[in-house]
């Protein structure tokens, strides 16, 4: 049963860890805009060259369509 003591402490530490992450995210405004990041992640890398873009254009099309 001694194990339970450790588990209790571990669960507390885990929960505190997630709480801190949540508070940090809320503080830095990551919940302010819940839409544009979902679009942003679909961009092709800006720095890629013309040629690579060409190869991917079909994908881009369907992706940007939401």
């Amino acid at each position, binding site marked *: *049963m001694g194990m*339970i*003591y450790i588990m*209790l402490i571990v*669960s*507390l530490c885990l*929960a*505190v860890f*997630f*709480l801190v992450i*949540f*508070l940090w995210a*809320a*503080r830095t*405004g990551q*919940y*302010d*805009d*819940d*839409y*544009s990041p979902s*679009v*942003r992640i679909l*961009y092709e890398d*800006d720095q890629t060259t*013309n040629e690579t*873009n*060409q190869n991917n*254009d*079909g994908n*881009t*099309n369907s992706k*940007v*369509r*939401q």
Partner: protein
Amino acid sequence: MQNQTEEKTCYHCHDVLPNTVFYADEHAFCCNGCKQVYQLLSAHSLGSYYEQDARAGIRPNAVLQENFAVLDDEELRKKYIDFQEGSIVKITLHLPQIHCASCIFLLEHLHRLNEGILRSTIHFPKKTATITINLEQIKLSELAVLLTKIGYEPDFKVIDKSTGTFNKRLLFQLGIAGFAFGSIMLWSFPEYLGIDHTYSGIRNLSSYLSFAVSIPVLLFSAQDYFKSAMAGIRLRSLNLDIPIAIGILALYIRSCVAIFNQEGPGYMDSFAAFIFFLLIGKWFQGKTYQWLSFERDFRSYFPVAVIKKMGDHTVLCSIDELQVGDEILIRNEEIIPCDCILLSDKATLDYSFVSGEADWIEKKKGDLLYAGGKSMGETVRLVVSKTTERSILTQLWNDGHSKKTELFFQTRQDRISKYFIAAVIGLALAASIAWIWIDPVQIPEIVTAILIVACPCALALSVPFVYGNMLRILGKKGFYLRNTAIIERIQQCNYLVFDKTGTLTEQDHKQIHYNGKALTKSDKETLFQMTKHAVHPYAKAIHVLLSESMTDFESDQQAIEITGKGISMNGFQLGSAAFVGLKEQNTDESAVYFAREGELVGTFLFQSKLRHQLKELIRNLGPTYSLAVVSGDKPKDLDLLRTIFPSGTEFRFEQQPLQKKEFIQGLQAKGNYTLMIGDGLNDAGALNEAFVGIALSEDLVRFTPASDAILKAENLKYLDSYLHYIRNGKRFLRICFAFSLCYNLTGIGFAVSGQLTPFVATILMPLSSITVVSLATFLTLRRELPPHKTGSASE
């Protein structure tokens, strides 16, 4: 059928097409963003990505740049800039046109259109773009022009940097409550499974841990409920937060007693869950339309700066710095920022937004022009006679904002809570009296148990979820309410007051009726020539009407236009009654007379065009509401309005803004709850005075006066459905109340009989909350509101 639906949605993002549609390669797009992305991509596949000029097809517009000249002035631009270091500038612009994924895509790739733009980030809910540019490569005014050209005109008037703090605090509270709820529940599991004194070590540890994490929940997450309850007690008005606060305290104290008596963690899990659910309700209800401004002041209607003439050269001057006696220039379609005297020979002004008068007004040299008018035509020169602060319009506005006498408005929830508190206290007393005979030792336990289960958690969740959901659904349909309290207010309204110009009639659109002898082909050709180069708006309108049925042709005949009077050509005359030589018969300023050699051929009558399906709307509203129309315009449309409004309707014409407000005051003094629907500045006072003020907006981008709700103008025809839906909200709420009371009664059954264990409470409380929340969602969703996604909505 397949084809039809395809026609009606954007080729790129599949949104329903709005009124203004963009075309490329025979495909229709909902916005320039979608079109640009399509063009980028299609050019892309041809291997010429960078050859593609995203700005192709749009003419450079020098005038446009002048409009944004304020951004190039070191002093004036300060209030817009977030940060500047050397030539690198970061600026946050409000772009009201942002509405879809393509918009974000296009605007975050601005650096491909201009090298001077280093970075741009979109904040979608606020509809703002934060753009970093290098001033050496692109001026701020050029940036604004670029944005305007690609379809996102910056709106400089409503940058609000302070929003979001309320939301953040709520998120913190929610996070901490959620953390405590999850942890305590986990630690309580041994308790649920029947742990007893044999393992008192584990039991005590989990109890003390629960106690530790519950402290921030009580002190931080729940503090608003205590504050509200205290305020309620102090003001001697019972609100729902009082039984909630009592319940929370009962839960907490009882649990603490249990913990320190080493009897397990008590009801700490219920306590944390309770706060967590309540906060979720609050968060759900707190949805706001960050990008809409319900509180605009007069400043946001005026331009930021005007051109001031100083000797030979002109400078840009902020309207706050204008002095009496300054000479200013106002260009076509610009708004006059202060009361002025006209220096140019003449000016044509559109005051429809300010006074409700639909016709343009001609002013001559030396006339006094009031602030707020829109100059139509050539650039005019003016001398400032009163500063903006002291202009008539500004004073009217400030008057309109003489804070609505804070009606002591009790929500339905608060009215219920009165009975609720009485019932709970009565029950607790009765139960304790009964237990004197059974087992007096248990009395404190029974009383706290009653207070705990009677805590109206589900009841408190009903309002946020029923009304919060309605708010969202209405928002999707183009009817934006400021907050959920407005829903209850609208339910009470019994008197609808409409403004006429811009509300019942469409802005900028007029119908022309022709009375008189039939026009021959040559008459038409003559008219066509006469009006070809005309300046007067009526003549222009006649020309547009004629050009629908005939093609342009050249003629050497010269038409002579006498400003403000009429046009003559080759013995034909077109203009006012006096101009064509008629005795002033029935002076109607909205009529244009057409005469040949002094003999009247016919009359063109200009009539306001009523909004589409207005007749049906009024017919549906008539039985439920008393109706009235107040207008700043002349009573020329009275006959037209009489045909669609029921007989008891009150019509008031030529009403000054102050009179409109007084009319509303009069109605309310008689015990009516008025709902005012208007669109212009002239309605601002009345909108504010009314129990509920709804501002109509053509495109949500244009300026609207301060109001409780904003309705898309094209959806006015559905107002009856919206109001009906909102009235139904009462019933939805009642059903939810009934359900949550059932749960409370069940709980009280357990409590009175002394069987309320922490385990029962843990099950009962979330169960009731979840039932009420899903019930609220189901009830409000069930109704189908117009406009529907496809079909009749986009005719």
